[in-house]
């Protein structure tokens, strides 16, 4: 529903009133921003010394390479893992066999209902604290893997629901036609349903990547590397918490907006109007039980 349906086309008097509201609101916003800027300036937050680290090549490299790249690596790793996890458990949840369906349901429910941070802390102090880091080209400590695995489990169980919703979104006739030409259950799933579901799921997977990217910052609790960690060591050294928080926010928000943009583009390019709402999919399990 477009916003304009909610109110009549404003007449001359309302237009004036709206204009007054707009001006008042703009004025209020300008005042708030101006006050914030004045306050920041008054507290000396714009002093060059506080911002200098962010203009120093070493620190920019640290932020971008040790920070941004590691964060993205963790998020990408987690999402790849989550997609695999999601497909395995999503399909398992749709199994005709109770002994496959139920354990899959329990695993998915367990990881979805528990804070990912709790899992991360448990994994880290229970296992990764004592393992030798380093995997493929990634030379990292346990915190890295605690983050990746915890996020894989959590996002994977959310994606399991998305997979199910994606398969459910494929028109029924597709499966029926496949059975009619003599395909087996596995063939119907792997050749007919999943390929079509994937297309619909792509934007949802990318939205989930935004979630994973944000959640990598939970690695703060388990000494994991990444943007937050680099920022932390910068503000500990220079006591420039405000500028650091600002720079970190810009980097995270920028990256996430980029991903959202990508999701929108993929949606338009590959999927068209049909869309799996990730919120609805995540809430979908509740509807099942109803």
């Amino acid at each position, binding site marked *: 529903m477009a916003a304009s349906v909610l109110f009549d086309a404003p007449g001359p008097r309302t237009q004036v009133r709206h204009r007054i509201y707009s001006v008042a609101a703009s004025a209020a916003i300008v005042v708030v921003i101006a006050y914030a800027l004045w306050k920041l300036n008054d507290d000396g937050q714009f002093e060059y010394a506080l911002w200098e680290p962010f203009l120093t090549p070493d620190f920019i490299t640290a932020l971008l390479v040790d920070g941004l790249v590691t964060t993205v690596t963790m998020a990408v790793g987690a999402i790849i893992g989550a997609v695999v996890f999601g497909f395995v458990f999503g399909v398992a949840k749709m199994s005709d066999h109770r002994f496959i369906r139920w354990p899959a349901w329990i695993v998915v429910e367990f990881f979805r209902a528990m804070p990912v941070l709790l899992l991360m802390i448990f994994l880290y102090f229970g296992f990764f604290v004592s393992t030798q880091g380093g995997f493929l080209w990634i030379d990292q400590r346990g915190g890295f893997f605690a983050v990746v695995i915890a996020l894989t489990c959590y996002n994977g169980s959310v994606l399991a629901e998305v997979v199910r919703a994606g398969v459910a979104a494929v028109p029924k006739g597709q499966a029926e036609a496949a059975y009619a030409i003599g395909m087996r259950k596995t063939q119907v799933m792997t050749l007919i349903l999943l390929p079509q579901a994937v297309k619909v799921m792509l934007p949802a997977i990318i939205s989930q990547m935004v979630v994973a990217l944000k959640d990598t*910052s939970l690695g703060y*609790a388990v000494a994991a590397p990444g943007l937050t960690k680099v920022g932390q060591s910068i503000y500990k050294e220079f006591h420039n918490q405000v500028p650091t928080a600002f720079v970190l926010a810009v980097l995270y928000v920028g990256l996430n907006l980029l991903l959202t943009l990508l999701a929108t583009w993929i949606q338009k390019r590959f999927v068209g109007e049909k869309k799996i709402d990730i*919120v609805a999919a995540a809430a979908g399990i509740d509807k099942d039980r109803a």
Partner: protein
Amino acid sequence: MTPLNAVLDNLDQFFKAFGYTLFLFLVCAVASMALGALLVAMRVGPIGVLRKVAAVYVSLVRNTPLVLIFIFFHFAAPIIGINFKWVQIYVGSFDFTSAFATAFIALSLYTSCFVCEALRSGVNAVSIGQAEAARAIGLPFSGVMTQVVLPQALRASVPPLASALIAMLKNTSVAGIFFLAEATATMRGLSNDFSSQRLGIFLCFAIGYIVLVEIVSMISLSFERRWRIA
């Protein structure tokens, strides 16, 4: 030694920890729904400036990691004179001091964006005819919203709203790494003291969270059923 001794011997700590989690969840739920409703009103309202402000606010805050918001309020904001050390409420053995207040602010601000989006999807689900009919009988924007659209939107947004609140319930765990002795912090403390029972301790706390999540989701289900349009 059963694997659960650590939790059984410290049941008071266990329940107190989840007490903090639950209190934090409840106050944040109220605050974030109020703020979310305000945001959605701005977001769909007739004032262009407010629409933009709400949109920018939502897209900025929801794309910022919660940990960063906590870091801001704990370590950056005090430097520019925003702090919550004046909050000192003591209820029984619970202390609601700066750690709790900061968690409350950070979580509510963060969650309100998701509440706003949930409500907006609900507003979008209300059929156009409803709003048109409301306008036809002469209701102003405030009337259209409060009398006709929002009550129905709320109904349609129960599932996404419940998702947002459940996510927030799980996000209260972040407060545990910022000075608040809630469930996640307590799990960490206990696992440290009884390192041989890590798995048991972890499962107990995980189940504690799962129970809370299930309660919230059941409440949302019952609302959904009660409000289902026949």
